[in-house]
Protein backbone atom coordinates (compact mmCIF):
# COMPACT_ATOMS: atom_id res chain seq x y z
CA UNK A 1 0.00 0.00 0.00
CA UNK A 2 1.35 3.41 -0.92
CA UNK A 3 2.42 5.66 1.93
CA UNK A 4 0.12 8.57 2.69
CA UNK A 5 1.63 12.05 2.71
CA UNK A 6 -0.06 15.34 3.53
CA UNK A 7 1.27 18.50 1.91
CA UNK A 8 0.30 21.99 3.04
CA UNK A 9 0.83 25.27 1.27
CA UNK A 10 -0.42 28.74 0.62
CA UNK A 11 -0.84 28.76 -3.14
CA UNK A 12 -1.03 32.55 -3.31
CA UNK A 13 2.48 32.79 -1.87
CA UNK A 14 4.81 30.50 -3.74
CA UNK A 15 2.57 28.22 -5.80
CA UNK A 16 5.66 27.09 -7.70
CA UNK A 17 7.31 25.87 -4.53
CA UNK A 18 4.23 23.87 -3.55
CA UNK A 19 4.08 22.28 -7.01
CA UNK A 20 7.81 21.50 -6.74
CA UNK A 21 7.14 19.53 -3.55
CA UNK A 22 4.28 17.68 -5.25
CA UNK A 23 6.46 17.00 -8.31
CA UNK A 24 9.20 15.63 -6.10
CA UNK A 25 6.75 13.24 -4.44
CA UNK A 26 5.33 12.21 -7.83
CA UNK A 27 8.85 11.32 -9.02
CA UNK A 28 9.67 9.16 -5.99
CA UNK A 29 9.19 5.40 -6.17
CA UNK A 30 6.87 4.19 -4.97
CA UNK A 31 4.96 7.44 -5.25
CA UNK A 32 2.92 8.13 -2.11
CA UNK A 33 -0.77 8.97 -2.03
CA UNK A 34 -0.83 12.71 -1.49
CA UNK A 35 -3.48 14.78 0.24
CA UNK A 36 -3.20 18.52 0.46
CA UNK A 37 -4.42 21.38 2.61
CA UNK A 38 -4.07 24.83 1.12
CA UNK A 39 -5.26 28.33 1.85
CA UNK A 40 -6.90 30.36 -0.88
CA UNK A 41 -9.87 30.00 -3.19
CA UNK A 42 -11.58 27.13 -4.99
CA UNK A 43 -9.69 28.20 -8.14
CA UNK A 44 -6.42 27.79 -6.25
CA UNK A 45 -7.46 24.26 -5.34
CA UNK A 46 -8.15 23.48 -9.01
CA UNK A 47 -4.45 24.15 -9.75
CA UNK A 48 -3.61 20.99 -7.81
CA UNK A 49 -5.79 18.78 -10.04
CA UNK A 50 -3.94 15.67 -11.11
CA UNK A 51 -1.26 16.15 -8.47
CA UNK A 52 -3.11 14.98 -5.37
CA UNK A 53 -5.85 12.56 -4.42
CA UNK A 54 -7.64 15.12 -2.32
CA UNK A 55 -7.28 18.82 -1.72
CA UNK A 56 -8.98 20.72 1.05
CA UNK A 57 -8.90 24.47 0.70
CA UNK A 58 -9.26 26.84 3.62
CA UNK A 59 -11.21 29.65 2.00
CA UNK A 60 -9.54 32.95 2.76
CA UNK A 61 -8.63 36.14 0.99
CA UNK A 62 -5.70 36.96 3.29
CA UNK A 63 -3.01 34.93 5.03
CA UNK A 64 -4.17 32.65 7.82
CA UNK A 65 -2.76 32.53 11.33
CA UNK A 66 -1.06 29.36 12.55
CA UNK A 67 -3.96 28.66 14.92
CA UNK A 68 -6.42 28.54 11.98
CA UNK A 69 -4.23 26.03 10.12
CA UNK A 70 -3.78 23.87 13.22
CA UNK A 71 -7.53 23.74 13.99
CA UNK A 72 -8.07 21.94 10.66
CA UNK A 73 -4.76 20.13 10.40
CA UNK A 74 -4.54 18.35 13.74
CA UNK A 75 -7.81 16.36 13.48
CA UNK A 76 -7.18 15.61 9.81
CA UNK A 77 -3.66 14.33 10.50
CA UNK A 78 -4.97 12.18 13.32
CA UNK A 79 -7.60 10.65 11.00
CA UNK A 80 -5.32 10.29 7.98
CA UNK A 81 -2.23 9.04 9.88
CA UNK A 82 0.21 10.18 7.16
CA UNK A 83 3.86 9.10 7.15
CA UNK A 84 4.89 12.69 6.55
CA UNK A 85 3.37 16.15 6.65
CA UNK A 86 5.27 18.41 4.28
CA UNK A 87 5.39 22.01 3.10
CA UNK A 88 7.70 24.02 0.89
CA UNK A 89 10.19 25.75 3.17
CA UNK A 90 9.20 29.30 3.99
CA UNK A 91 7.16 31.40 6.36
CA UNK A 92 4.21 29.00 6.44
CA UNK A 93 6.53 26.13 7.38
CA UNK A 94 8.04 28.11 10.26
CA UNK A 95 4.60 29.14 11.45
CA UNK A 96 2.68 25.88 11.29
CA UNK A 97 4.94 22.81 11.16
CA UNK A 98 6.80 22.82 14.53
CA UNK A 99 3.58 23.43 16.48
CA UNK A 100 1.88 20.66 14.49
CA UNK A 101 4.77 18.33 15.32
CA UNK A 102 4.30 19.21 19.00
CA UNK A 103 0.55 18.51 18.80
CA UNK A 104 0.87 15.08 17.18
CA UNK A 105 4.14 13.95 18.78
CA UNK A 106 6.07 13.88 15.51
CA UNK A 107 9.68 14.67 14.69
CA UNK A 108 10.21 17.99 12.93
CA UNK A 109 12.87 18.99 10.41
CA UNK A 110 12.63 22.28 8.56
CA UNK A 111 14.48 23.17 5.35
CA UNK A 112 15.31 19.61 4.31
CA UNK A 113 17.56 18.96 1.33
CA UNK A 114 16.57 15.33 1.12
CA UNK A 115 13.61 13.17 2.08
CA UNK A 116 13.03 9.50 1.47
CA UNK A 117 10.02 7.48 2.51
CA UNK A 118 10.63 3.74 2.25
CA UNK A 119 8.47 0.88 3.51
CA UNK A 120 10.19 0.78 6.92
CA UNK A 121 11.86 4.14 7.45
CA UNK A 122 11.67 7.84 6.76
CA UNK A 123 14.97 9.64 6.19
CA UNK A 124 15.46 13.38 6.20
CA UNK A 125 18.61 15.33 5.46
CA UNK A 126 19.22 18.96 6.39
CA UNK A 127 22.11 21.33 6.89
CA UNK A 128 23.44 22.86 10.07
CA UNK A 129 26.20 25.33 10.89
CA UNK A 130 25.83 27.35 7.72
CA UNK A 131 26.02 24.28 5.50
CA UNK A 132 29.27 23.01 7.00
CA UNK A 133 27.64 19.89 8.37
CA UNK A 134 24.74 17.68 7.35
CA UNK A 135 22.25 16.03 9.65
CA UNK A 136 20.49 12.81 8.76
CA UNK A 137 17.48 11.64 10.73
CA UNK A 138 16.22 8.09 10.40
CA UNK A 139 12.73 7.46 11.72
CA UNK A 140 10.80 4.21 11.97
CA UNK A 141 7.67 4.18 9.79
CA UNK A 142 5.46 4.40 12.88
CA UNK A 143 6.72 7.90 13.73
CA UNK A 144 5.44 10.65 11.45
CA UNK A 145 7.84 13.28 10.14
CA UNK A 146 6.83 16.89 9.84
CA UNK A 147 9.19 18.60 7.41
CA UNK A 148 9.65 21.47 5.01
CA UNK A 149 11.57 21.02 1.79
CA UNK A 150 14.02 23.61 0.57
CA UNK A 151 12.39 25.64 -2.15
CA UNK A 152 13.82 26.95 -5.36
CA UNK A 153 13.48 23.77 -7.36
CA UNK A 154 11.43 23.98 -10.54
CA UNK A 155 8.44 21.71 -10.94
CA UNK A 156 9.57 19.87 -14.06
CA UNK A 157 7.17 16.97 -13.74
CA UNK A 158 3.66 17.10 -15.19
CA UNK A 159 0.72 16.11 -13.00
CA UNK A 160 -0.53 12.59 -13.45
CA UNK A 161 -3.62 12.47 -15.66
CA UNK A 162 -4.63 9.29 -13.86
CA UNK A 163 -5.23 10.96 -10.50
CA UNK A 164 -8.77 12.15 -9.79
CA UNK A 165 -8.57 15.02 -7.36
CA UNK A 166 -11.39 15.49 -4.87
CA UNK A 167 -11.79 19.13 -3.89
CA UNK A 168 -13.38 20.24 -0.66
CA UNK A 169 -13.73 23.83 0.50
CA UNK A 170 -13.67 24.63 4.22
CA UNK A 171 -14.27 27.75 6.24
CA UNK A 172 -11.22 28.33 8.44
CA UNK A 173 -11.78 28.71 12.16
CA UNK A 174 -10.99 32.28 13.17
CA UNK A 175 -8.43 32.63 15.93
CA UNK A 176 -7.21 35.52 18.04
CA UNK A 177 -4.52 36.52 15.58
CA UNK A 178 -5.86 38.69 12.76
CA UNK A 179 -4.24 39.79 9.55
CA UNK A 180 -4.46 43.56 9.07
CA UNK A 181 -2.46 44.41 5.96
CA UNK A 182 0.65 43.69 3.89
CA UNK A 183 3.43 46.09 3.08
CA UNK A 184 6.11 45.82 0.41
CA UNK A 185 9.70 46.85 1.17
CA UNK A 186 10.17 50.45 -0.01
CA UNK A 187 11.87 50.63 -3.40
CA UNK A 188 15.45 51.88 -3.55
CA UNK A 189 17.12 53.96 -6.25
CA UNK A 190 19.38 51.11 -7.35
CA UNK A 191 17.68 48.23 -9.13
CA UNK A 192 19.71 45.15 -8.25
CA UNK A 193 17.31 43.03 -10.30
CA UNK A 194 18.27 44.46 -13.69
CA UNK A 195 22.06 44.90 -13.25
CA UNK A 196 24.27 42.65 -15.31
CA UNK A 197 27.06 42.64 -12.70
CA UNK A 198 26.21 42.56 -9.02
CA UNK A 199 28.83 42.83 -6.27
CA UNK A 200 27.31 41.14 -3.22
CA UNK A 201 28.79 42.06 0.15
CA UNK A 202 28.53 40.05 3.35
CA UNK A 203 29.71 40.53 6.91
CA UNK A 204 33.14 39.42 5.72
CA UNK A 205 33.84 42.90 4.34
CA UNK A 206 34.51 43.80 7.95
CA UNK A 207 33.10 47.28 8.42
CA UNK A 208 30.54 49.68 7.01
CA UNK A 209 33.28 52.10 6.01
CA UNK A 210 34.66 49.46 3.61
CA UNK A 211 31.45 49.60 1.55
CA UNK A 212 32.85 52.56 -0.40
CA UNK A 213 35.52 50.33 -1.89
CA UNK A 214 32.95 47.75 -3.07
CA UNK A 215 30.80 50.52 -4.57
CA UNK A 216 33.88 51.68 -6.48
CA UNK A 217 34.52 48.13 -7.70
CA UNK A 218 30.89 47.81 -8.82
CA UNK A 219 30.93 51.22 -10.52
CA UNK A 220 34.19 50.41 -12.31
CA UNK A 221 32.59 47.41 -14.03
CA UNK A 222 29.18 49.01 -14.57
CA UNK A 223 27.58 47.00 -11.78
CA UNK A 224 25.77 47.63 -8.52
CA UNK A 225 26.30 46.61 -4.92
CA UNK A 226 23.84 44.29 -3.16
CA UNK A 227 24.08 42.61 0.23
CA UNK A 228 23.37 39.56 2.31
CA UNK A 229 20.89 39.75 5.17
CA UNK A 230 23.33 40.31 8.07
CA UNK A 231 24.71 43.42 6.35
CA UNK A 232 21.19 44.77 5.85
CA UNK A 233 20.28 43.94 9.47
CA UNK A 234 23.29 45.97 10.58
CA UNK A 235 21.83 48.91 8.69
CA UNK A 236 24.78 49.29 6.33
CA UNK A 237 22.62 48.93 3.21
CA UNK A 238 18.85 49.45 2.61
CA UNK A 239 16.61 46.40 2.75
CA UNK A 240 15.62 46.84 -0.90
CA UNK A 241 19.17 45.79 -1.85
CA UNK A 242 19.10 42.51 0.04
CA UNK A 243 19.58 39.33 -1.97
CA UNK A 244 18.12 36.03 -0.82
CA UNK A 245 14.98 34.29 0.36
CA UNK A 246 13.79 37.30 2.34
CA UNK A 247 15.15 39.78 -0.20
CA UNK A 248 15.37 39.81 -3.99
CA UNK A 249 16.04 36.85 -6.24
CA UNK A 250 18.37 38.09 -8.96
CA UNK A 251 19.84 36.75 -12.20
CA UNK A 252 22.86 38.91 -13.15
CA UNK A 253 25.39 37.89 -15.76
CA UNK A 254 28.07 37.87 -13.02
CA UNK A 255 27.60 37.79 -9.25
CA UNK A 256 30.74 38.59 -7.24
CA UNK A 257 30.16 37.38 -3.67
CA UNK A 258 32.55 39.18 -1.29
CA UNK A 259 32.78 37.94 2.27
CA UNK A 260 29.50 36.04 1.97
CA UNK A 261 29.53 32.69 3.73
CA UNK A 262 26.86 31.16 1.52
CA UNK A 263 23.92 30.60 3.85
CA UNK A 264 21.18 28.69 2.02
CA UNK A 265 18.81 31.65 2.34
CA UNK A 266 21.29 33.81 0.43
CA UNK A 267 22.09 31.19 -2.19
CA UNK A 268 18.38 30.94 -3.05
CA UNK A 269 18.58 34.49 -4.31
CA UNK A 270 21.50 33.94 -6.71
CA UNK A 271 20.67 30.55 -8.19
CA UNK A 272 19.93 32.10 -11.56
CA UNK A 273 23.15 34.12 -11.81
CA UNK A 274 25.21 33.33 -14.92
CA UNK A 275 28.61 33.13 -13.21
CA UNK A 276 29.11 33.23 -9.46
CA UNK A 277 32.57 34.35 -8.35
CA UNK A 278 33.10 33.89 -4.60
CA UNK A 279 35.83 35.54 -2.55
CA UNK A 280 36.20 34.42 1.05
CA UNK A 281 39.10 33.91 3.41
CA UNK A 282 37.51 30.74 4.82
CA UNK A 283 38.25 27.99 2.33
CA UNK A 284 35.49 25.86 3.85
CA UNK A 285 32.84 28.57 3.33
CA UNK A 286 29.75 26.93 1.78
CA UNK A 287 29.55 29.67 -0.88
CA UNK A 288 32.33 27.85 -2.75
CA UNK A 289 30.01 24.88 -3.26
CA UNK A 290 27.71 27.12 -5.27
CA UNK A 291 30.33 29.24 -7.05
CA UNK A 292 31.70 28.74 -10.54
CA UNK A 293 34.91 30.54 -9.67
CA UNK A 294 36.44 30.71 -6.20
CA UNK A 295 39.13 32.83 -4.59
CA UNK A 296 40.43 32.18 -1.10
CA UNK A 297 41.74 35.57 0.03
CA UNK A 298 41.59 38.17 2.76
CA UNK A 299 39.30 40.88 1.40
CA UNK A 300 41.26 43.61 3.18
CA UNK A 301 44.06 42.86 0.69
CA UNK A 302 42.07 41.47 -2.19
CA UNK A 303 39.45 44.21 -2.67
CA UNK A 304 41.93 47.11 -3.16
CA UNK A 305 43.99 44.86 -5.46
CA UNK A 306 40.87 44.03 -7.46
CA UNK A 307 39.94 47.69 -7.94
CA UNK A 308 43.47 48.39 -9.14
CA UNK A 309 43.45 45.35 -11.44
CA UNK A 310 40.12 46.43 -12.99
CA UNK A 311 41.75 49.78 -13.76
CA UNK A 312 44.65 48.00 -15.48
CA UNK A 313 42.28 45.77 -17.44
CA UNK A 314 40.31 48.73 -18.70
CA UNK A 315 43.47 50.61 -19.71
CA UNK A 316 44.65 47.56 -21.64
CA UNK A 317 41.32 47.35 -23.43
CA UNK A 318 41.14 50.99 -24.44
CA UNK A 319 40.95 51.41 -28.23
CA UNK A 320 44.27 52.59 -29.59
Amino acid at each position, binding site marked *: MAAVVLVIGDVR*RGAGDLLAVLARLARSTPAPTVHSLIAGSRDDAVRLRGWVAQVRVLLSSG*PLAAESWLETLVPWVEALAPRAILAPHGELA*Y*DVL*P*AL*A*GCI*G*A*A*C*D*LDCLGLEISADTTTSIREQ*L*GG*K*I*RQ*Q*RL*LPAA*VPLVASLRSGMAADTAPSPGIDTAIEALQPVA*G*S*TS*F*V*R*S*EITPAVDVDIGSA*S*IVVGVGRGIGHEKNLKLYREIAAA*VGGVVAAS*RPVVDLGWIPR*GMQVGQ*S*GRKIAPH*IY*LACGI*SGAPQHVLGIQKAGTI*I*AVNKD*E*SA*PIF*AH*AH*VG*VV*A*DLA*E*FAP*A*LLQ*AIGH*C*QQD*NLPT
Partner: protein
Amino acid sequence: MSIAVCIKQVIDHEAPTGTIRPAGRWIDERSLSYKTCAWSQYAMEEAVALGASMDAATTAVTVGPERARDVLRQALSRGIGRGMHVLDSRDAYADPCVTARLLAAVLKPLEPKVVLAGLQAEDTTEGVVGPMLAHFLGMRHVTGVVRAEWEAHDNRLVLWRELEGGARDMVTTTTPVVLTIQTGGRPLRSPSLLDVRKGRTREIVGLHPGELDLDGFGPYAPVGTVSFYAPPLAHGTARMIQGSVAEKAAAVAELLSGGMR
Protein backbone atom coordinates in the same frame (compact mmCIF):
# COMPACT_ATOMS: atom_id res chain seq x y z
CA MET B 1 2.83 40.79 34.74
CA SER B 2 5.86 39.02 33.29
CA ILE B 3 7.40 38.40 29.91
CA ALA B 4 10.21 36.01 29.07
CA VAL B 5 12.80 35.68 26.36
CA CYS B 6 14.50 32.40 25.42
CA ILE B 7 18.08 32.89 24.24
CA LYS B 8 20.89 30.65 23.07
CA GLN B 9 24.63 30.51 22.92
CA VAL B 10 25.61 29.13 19.53
CA ILE B 11 28.67 27.70 17.85
CA ASP B 12 30.37 30.45 15.87
CA HIS B 13 30.67 28.53 12.62
CA GLU B 14 32.15 31.53 10.84
CA ALA B 15 34.95 32.03 13.37
CA PRO B 16 38.39 32.12 11.73
CA THR B 17 39.65 29.38 14.04
CA GLY B 18 38.24 25.92 14.60
CA THR B 19 37.14 23.33 12.10
CA ILE B 20 33.66 21.85 12.04
CA ARG B 21 34.09 18.08 12.04
CA PRO B 22 31.30 15.52 12.25
CA ALA B 23 31.62 13.08 15.14
CA GLY B 24 28.80 10.58 14.61
CA ARG B 25 25.92 11.68 16.81
CA TRP B 26 27.11 15.29 16.90
CA ILE B 27 30.20 17.28 15.99
CA ASP B 28 33.60 17.58 17.61
CA GLU B 29 33.25 20.82 19.59
CA ARG B 30 36.88 21.01 20.72
CA SER B 31 38.57 24.02 19.06
CA LEU B 32 35.26 25.75 18.32
CA SER B 33 34.22 29.12 19.72
CA TYR B 34 30.81 30.36 20.82
CA LYS B 35 28.77 33.54 20.65
CA THR B 36 25.29 34.84 21.33
CA CYS B 37 22.88 33.89 18.57
CA ALA B 38 21.96 36.86 16.35
CA TRP B 39 18.26 35.94 16.54
CA SER B 40 18.51 35.86 20.36
CA GLN B 41 20.01 39.35 20.35
CA TYR B 42 17.06 40.77 18.43
CA ALA B 43 14.65 38.84 20.67
CA MET B 44 16.32 40.42 23.74
CA GLU B 45 15.90 43.93 22.28
CA GLU B 46 12.24 43.27 21.57
CA ALA B 47 11.76 41.84 25.08
CA VAL B 48 13.32 44.90 26.74
CA ALA B 49 11.11 47.23 24.68
CA LEU B 50 7.94 45.19 25.33
CA GLY B 51 8.80 44.87 29.02
CA ALA B 52 8.95 48.67 29.25
CA SER B 53 5.73 49.29 27.34
CA MET B 54 3.80 46.52 29.13
CA ASP B 55 5.30 47.44 32.50
CA ALA B 56 6.24 43.79 32.89
CA ALA B 57 9.10 42.03 34.67
CA THR B 58 11.47 40.43 32.15
CA THR B 59 13.23 37.08 32.46
CA ALA B 60 15.78 35.58 30.08
CA VAL B 61 16.08 31.79 29.96
CA THR B 62 18.72 29.63 28.38
CA VAL B 63 19.47 25.90 28.20
CA GLY B 64 23.08 24.85 27.89
CA PRO B 65 26.37 24.10 29.62
CA GLU B 66 28.15 26.41 32.06
CA ARG B 67 29.58 28.61 29.28
CA ALA B 68 26.02 29.45 28.12
CA ARG B 69 25.67 31.68 31.21
CA ASP B 70 27.47 34.37 29.17
CA VAL B 71 24.34 35.00 27.10
CA LEU B 72 22.33 35.60 30.26
CA ARG B 73 24.91 38.12 31.48
CA GLN B 74 24.60 39.87 28.14
CA ALA B 75 20.81 39.90 28.45
CA LEU B 76 21.03 41.39 31.96
CA SER B 77 23.40 44.11 30.79
CA ARG B 78 20.93 44.97 28.03
CA GLY B 79 18.17 45.53 30.54
CA ILE B 80 16.53 42.14 31.13
CA GLY B 81 15.58 41.85 34.82
CA ARG B 82 16.58 38.29 35.66
CA GLY B 83 18.27 35.23 34.17
CA MET B 84 17.40 31.54 34.46
CA HIS B 85 19.92 28.93 33.38
CA VAL B 86 18.98 25.30 32.80
CA LEU B 87 22.34 23.62 33.09
CA ASP B 88 22.41 20.96 30.39
CA SER B 89 25.92 19.66 29.88
CA ARG B 90 25.15 16.80 27.51
CA ASP B 91 27.76 16.74 24.79
CA ALA B 92 25.33 15.67 22.11
CA TYR B 93 22.82 16.90 19.60
CA ALA B 94 20.13 18.81 21.51
CA ASP B 95 16.80 17.88 19.98
CA PRO B 96 14.62 21.00 19.76
CA CYS B 97 11.68 19.10 21.22
CA VAL B 98 13.70 18.30 24.36
CA THR B 99 14.82 21.93 24.64
CA ALA B 100 11.25 23.18 24.17
CA ARG B 101 10.02 20.92 27.00
CA LEU B 102 12.76 22.11 29.36
CA LEU B 103 11.93 25.75 28.56
CA ALA B 104 8.21 25.07 29.02
CA ALA B 105 8.87 23.57 32.45
CA VAL B 106 10.81 26.68 33.48
CA LEU B 107 8.32 29.16 32.04
CA LYS B 108 4.99 27.61 33.03
CA PRO B 109 5.14 28.70 36.72
CA LEU B 110 6.01 32.26 35.64
CA GLU B 111 2.74 32.54 33.68
CA PRO B 112 4.27 34.93 31.15
CA LYS B 113 2.01 37.09 28.99
CA VAL B 114 4.53 37.08 26.17
CA VAL B 115 7.39 34.69 25.47
CA LEU B 116 9.94 35.71 22.85
CA ALA B 117 12.49 33.50 21.14
CA GLY B 118 14.62 33.72 18.01
CA LEU B 119 12.96 32.52 14.80
CA GLN B 120 15.81 30.03 14.64
CA ALA B 121 19.29 29.56 16.05
CA GLU B 122 22.33 30.59 14.07
CA ASP B 123 24.04 27.21 14.41
CA THR B 124 21.30 24.61 13.98
CA THR B 125 18.85 26.81 11.97
CA GLU B 126 15.99 24.54 13.00
CA GLY B 127 13.26 27.07 13.79
CA VAL B 128 11.41 24.54 15.90
CA VAL B 129 11.82 25.48 19.59
CA GLY B 130 9.64 28.62 19.68
CA PRO B 131 6.38 27.27 18.21
CA MET B 132 6.85 23.90 19.92
CA LEU B 133 7.30 25.72 23.22
CA ALA B 134 4.03 27.53 22.49
CA HIS B 135 2.36 24.14 22.07
CA PHE B 136 3.73 22.86 25.37
CA LEU B 137 2.63 26.04 27.17
CA GLY B 138 -0.81 25.96 25.54
CA MET B 139 -0.18 29.41 24.06
CA ARG B 140 -0.71 30.66 20.52
CA HIS B 141 2.30 31.81 18.53
CA VAL B 142 3.30 34.15 15.73
CA THR B 143 6.58 33.58 13.89
CA GLY B 144 9.01 35.84 12.02
CA VAL B 145 8.16 38.99 13.97
CA VAL B 146 10.40 42.03 13.34
CA ARG B 147 8.50 44.48 15.50
CA ALA B 148 6.02 44.15 18.36
CA GLU B 149 4.06 47.03 19.87
CA TRP B 150 1.80 46.75 22.91
CA GLU B 151 -1.49 48.63 22.65
CA ALA B 152 -2.59 48.93 26.26
CA HIS B 153 -6.01 50.46 25.50
CA ASP B 154 -6.99 47.42 23.40
CA ASN B 155 -4.99 44.89 25.41
CA ARG B 156 -3.43 43.58 22.24
CA LEU B 157 -0.14 43.30 20.41
CA VAL B 158 0.42 44.78 16.97
CA LEU B 159 3.05 42.73 15.16
CA TRP B 160 4.98 43.07 11.94
CA ARG B 161 5.92 39.72 10.40
CA GLU B 162 8.57 39.47 7.77
CA LEU B 163 7.79 37.34 4.73
CA GLU B 164 9.74 36.04 1.81
CA GLY B 165 10.74 38.54 -0.83
CA GLY B 166 10.89 41.36 1.70
CA ALA B 167 7.14 41.88 2.20
CA ARG B 168 5.73 42.43 5.69
CA ASP B 169 2.37 41.53 7.18
CA MET B 170 0.83 43.48 10.01
CA VAL B 171 -1.19 41.28 12.37
CA THR B 172 -2.78 41.78 15.75
CA THR B 173 -2.97 39.23 18.51
CA THR B 174 -3.83 38.89 22.16
CA THR B 175 -1.82 37.49 25.04
CA PRO B 176 -0.61 35.04 26.16
CA VAL B 177 1.45 34.46 23.06
CA VAL B 178 4.86 33.16 21.95
CA LEU B 179 6.60 35.36 19.37
CA THR B 180 9.56 34.19 17.35
CA ILE B 181 11.72 37.11 16.34
CA GLN B 182 13.37 37.62 12.96
CA THR B 183 16.63 39.58 12.77
CA GLY B 184 16.75 43.20 11.65
CA GLY B 185 14.00 44.68 13.84
CA ARG B 186 14.99 47.06 16.63
CA PRO B 187 18.62 48.16 16.35
CA LEU B 188 20.99 46.25 18.65
CA ARG B 189 22.32 48.50 21.43
CA SER B 190 25.81 48.13 22.85
CA PRO B 191 25.51 48.17 26.63
CA SER B 192 27.42 50.95 28.37
CA LEU B 193 29.80 50.25 31.24
CA LEU B 194 27.05 51.38 33.61
CA ASP B 195 24.59 48.93 31.99
CA VAL B 196 27.11 46.13 32.42
CA ARG B 197 27.57 47.05 36.11
CA LYS B 198 23.82 47.17 36.64
CA GLY B 199 23.50 43.82 34.92
CA ARG B 200 26.00 42.28 37.32
CA THR B 201 23.72 43.08 40.25
CA ARG B 202 20.85 41.10 38.71
CA GLU B 203 20.16 37.51 39.62
CA ILE B 204 20.84 34.39 37.53
CA VAL B 205 18.96 31.36 38.82
CA GLY B 206 20.62 28.01 38.09
CA LEU B 207 18.41 24.97 37.47
CA HIS B 208 19.12 21.33 36.69
CA PRO B 209 16.90 19.43 34.22
CA GLY B 210 16.19 16.86 36.97
CA GLU B 211 14.55 19.53 39.12
CA LEU B 212 12.04 20.49 36.43
CA ASP B 213 8.53 19.12 36.24
CA LEU B 214 8.28 17.77 32.70
CA ASP B 215 5.03 15.90 33.26
CA GLY B 216 1.96 17.14 31.51
CA PHE B 217 3.55 18.35 28.29
CA GLY B 218 1.88 15.75 26.08
CA PRO B 219 3.54 13.16 23.90
CA TYR B 220 7.28 13.20 23.55
CA ALA B 221 8.47 13.17 19.93
CA PRO B 222 10.97 10.39 19.36
CA VAL B 223 13.97 11.86 17.58
CA GLY B 224 14.83 8.67 15.70
CA THR B 225 18.48 8.11 14.87
CA VAL B 226 20.27 11.37 14.17
CA SER B 227 23.76 11.37 12.69
CA PHE B 228 26.05 14.01 11.25
CA TYR B 229 28.41 13.94 8.31
CA ALA B 230 30.50 16.29 6.23
CA PRO B 231 28.77 17.77 3.17
CA PRO B 232 30.05 16.96 -0.28
CA LEU B 233 33.35 18.70 -1.05
CA ALA B 234 32.91 22.38 -0.23
CA HIS B 235 34.50 23.56 -3.46
CA GLY B 236 32.02 21.64 -5.58
CA THR B 237 32.77 22.37 -9.18
CA ALA B 238 34.20 25.85 -8.61
CA ARG B 239 37.42 26.70 -10.44
CA MET B 240 39.68 27.90 -7.64
CA ILE B 241 42.04 30.68 -8.69
CA GLN B 242 45.52 30.24 -7.25
CA GLY B 243 48.49 32.58 -6.98
CA SER B 244 49.39 35.79 -5.19
CA VAL B 245 46.72 38.29 -4.16
CA ALA B 246 47.63 40.43 -7.18
CA GLU B 247 47.36 37.45 -9.53
CA LYS B 248 44.01 36.42 -8.09
CA ALA B 249 42.75 40.01 -8.35
CA ALA B 250 43.94 40.25 -11.95
CA ALA B 251 42.11 37.03 -12.87
CA VAL B 252 38.84 38.22 -11.29
CA ALA B 253 39.23 41.67 -12.87
CA GLU B 254 39.58 39.98 -16.25
CA LEU B 255 36.36 38.02 -15.69
CA LEU B 256 34.47 41.11 -14.55
CA SER B 257 35.75 43.23 -17.41
CA GLY B 258 34.76 40.44 -19.80
CA GLY B 259 31.30 40.45 -18.25
CA MET B 260 31.05 44.17 -18.82
CA ARG B 261 31.97 44.05 -22.49
